């Protein structure tokens, strides 16, 4: 990283000057570009490739108050062997108290354990709690931490507070990868999405993630596109590659493929692996499996031929 970028986080003023100096995002133009990429027609061999790639990028998620160890174990089984000869998903994503269960189930399978942390989904708690929430999840076996930013601080212009919290959580992660959830539905403007993306990357995020899934709108195509442009520009500026994870509202194979097209035609090839691009979803996996089978056999099987976990 160049010295000037390394110094950006040294004070609220430098951070603000940098983030407000980023080029703006024109909403009409961004929406139009995302809509145009949404018309790409992905068929036959390209579709088969895209479906398997999408499956391997899924962060299979359950984030409910009603989650239990039994539910998480069942989901882990599905994550490892989604069905037929389909590849395993990238990770399962659970609440911190269920990390140990998932870690037990997934040991040696190559499927990662991701845990939301830092007072998910609102993030309305003290830094001390956020840091210990993170540390405990990592201690319980989480490979990846999905933290939420303090949107209140961001919207009130206290970028330094958000920055310092991310730095602190990153430190608590140790070897675990840090995904920073921007909750773009609450940031509201595309300019904010770009600024929050850079803020998170400057503070050390390994991934930037759109949403918690608890707020609508969640991962809309233009928002994902803007974040992909941000990671592309960040790598150009610093040499460091950061991943992107759209999450929330991606339910169909069509949605998933549109996301892959966005990656392909913005950030590019280097991001088209589970290491650098993830799809946070729960119901998506079964639709991918259904379309996968349809493509292989020419027929749709009924919903009872795909497991509900």
């Amino acid at each position, binding site marked *: 990283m160049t010295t000037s970028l390394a110094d950006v986080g040294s004070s609220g003023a430098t951070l603000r000057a940098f983030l407000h100096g980023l080029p703006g995002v024109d909403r009409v133009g961004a929406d139009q570009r995302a809509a145009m990429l949404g018309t790409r027609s*992905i068929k036959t061999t*390209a579709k088969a490739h895209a479906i398997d790639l999408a499956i391997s990028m899924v962060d299979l998620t359950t984030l409910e108050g009603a989650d239990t160890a039994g539910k998480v174990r069942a989901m882990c089984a599905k994550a490892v062997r989604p069905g037929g000869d389909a590849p395993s998903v990238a990770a399962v994503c659970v609440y911190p108290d269920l990390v140990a269960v998932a870690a037990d189930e997934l040991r040696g399978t190559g499927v990662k354990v991701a845990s939301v942390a830092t007072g998910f989904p609102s993030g309305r708690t003290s830094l001390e709690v956020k840091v210990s929430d993170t540390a405990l999840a990592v201690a319980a076996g989480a490979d990846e931490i999905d933290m939420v930013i303090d949107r209140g601080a961001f919207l009130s212009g206290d970028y330094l507070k958000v920055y310092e919290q991310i730095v602190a959580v990153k430190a608590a992660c140790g070897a675990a990868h840090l995904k920073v959830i921007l909750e773009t539905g609450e940031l509201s403007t595309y300019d904010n999405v770009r600024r929050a993306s850079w803020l998170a990357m400057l503070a050390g995020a390994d991934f930037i993630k759109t949403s918690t899934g608890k707020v609508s709108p969640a991962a809309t195509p233009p928002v994902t596109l803007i974040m992909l442009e941000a990671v592309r520009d960040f790598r150009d500026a610093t040499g460091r590659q950061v991943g992107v994870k759209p999450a929330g509202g991606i339910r169909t194979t069509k949605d998933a493929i549109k996301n892959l097209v966005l990656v392909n035609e913005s950030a590019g090839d280097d991001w088209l692996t589970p290491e650098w691009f993830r799809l946070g979803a729960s119901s998506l996996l079964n639709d991918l499996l259904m379309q996968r089978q349809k493509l292989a056999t020419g027929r749709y099987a009924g919903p009872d031929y795909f497991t509900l976990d």
Partner: protein
Amino acid sequence: MFEYAPAPESRDVVDLSPSYGLFINGEFVDGSGPSFKTVNPATEETLAEIATASSDDVDRAVQAARKAFGVWSALPGAERAKYLFRIARIIQERARELAVLESLDNGKPIRESRDVDLPLVAAHFFYYAGWADKLEHAGFGTKPLGVAGQVIPWNFPLLMLAWKIAPALACGNTVVLKPAETTPLTALLFADICRQADLPPGVVNIVTGAGETGAAVVAHPDVDKVAFTGSTEVGRIIARSVAGTGKKLTLELGGKAANIVFDDAAIDQAVEGVVNGIFFNQGHVCCAGSRLLVQESVQEELLAALKRRLGTLRLGDPLDKNTDIGAINSAEQLAKIRRLSDLGEAEGAERWSPACELPAKGFWFPPTLFTGVAQSHSIAREEIFGPVLSVLTFRTPAEAVEKANNTPYGLSAGVWTEKGSRILWMADRLRAGVVWANTFNKFDPASPFGGYKESGYGREGGRHGLGAYLDV
């Protein structure tokens, strides 16, 4: 690597005849001139034989239009509107067929004919249908002119037809329209739509042929109004031919538009706008943003982003749904683009194209940009009408205005900045018929369109467009 498999739109929706006649007085009739072939520019395959209308045929068409004018102009506006609404709806119903045919004959990507041309064509008929019974509120009177002779270009064959026919008919005129010789097919399919809509015979007549046919339409003594869209060169000839005859004339001619990017622009969207400005429809757009004026302080950044973006453009089969850049419309146009691009290099500008494989058959030109272009270079002055962008720089807003206006043309301009007051300041000073702010090549039937200086005169579209077809 995520390669997209071919995703071709089916040709089967189009029912091509081996040959087509002229559409006169509601009937398809033979032409007395020698027939000619229209080809698919992407493959050079012959699509159909097309009749040539001689001056006698044109005379028959004008007579039919004259006869129909009595009936058509006497209809209450609300009745004329019914026909136009009906035509608009049939266009929507047959949109897929029309889009495929347009791409076959013109070479433009199906994504554009499907998502841009056809929706705009239908919208134009809907829009002017709405005016037909409200002419007294438009401020140009309600008296139609009579027979309109209309000559249209090959870049947006059906859309230019809509721009010409919809307002003419709404105002109570009848028309004789000559489509371009390289793209007559959708106009002939439109003739079929007129029959399907039960439009009274003679209200719309389509005569095909080359320049001579067009000249006969323009020169016909019983034509009351001439409307032409095409090159400035032909526009001059038409203006001369019409001078002193009392015919009303509107001309929509060439352009060399400046797309002006300031250092505070939303850069990713500006790049998209520049790409859309010059590579939309292979640059076969009279209002194309063929001169990029970029503020020197962001030149490097913008050019790097632009080149990266050009690398993702997909050139190839126009019927493939993922194609961004289709074929050049004709061998003749391709030769012109090559000549001017070679001249650009010879005069000292630096040429760049992304790695891009061109199909072996057909007429193709890679997306190209020239850097180090000066105002004095031919590629900064002459309209290339192809996928070729000339990049120039400026230092201050005043210099941007000066360079943008320093052209014989004045059809359109684009301004890219996040500063609202600067947009208004620029728009006040740019001598161009359309000024787009933070967008480019956006069309709407409610918005007037037309040029300054050598880009022509008269306005098409919107309320203003009615003025060209009424006896003001």
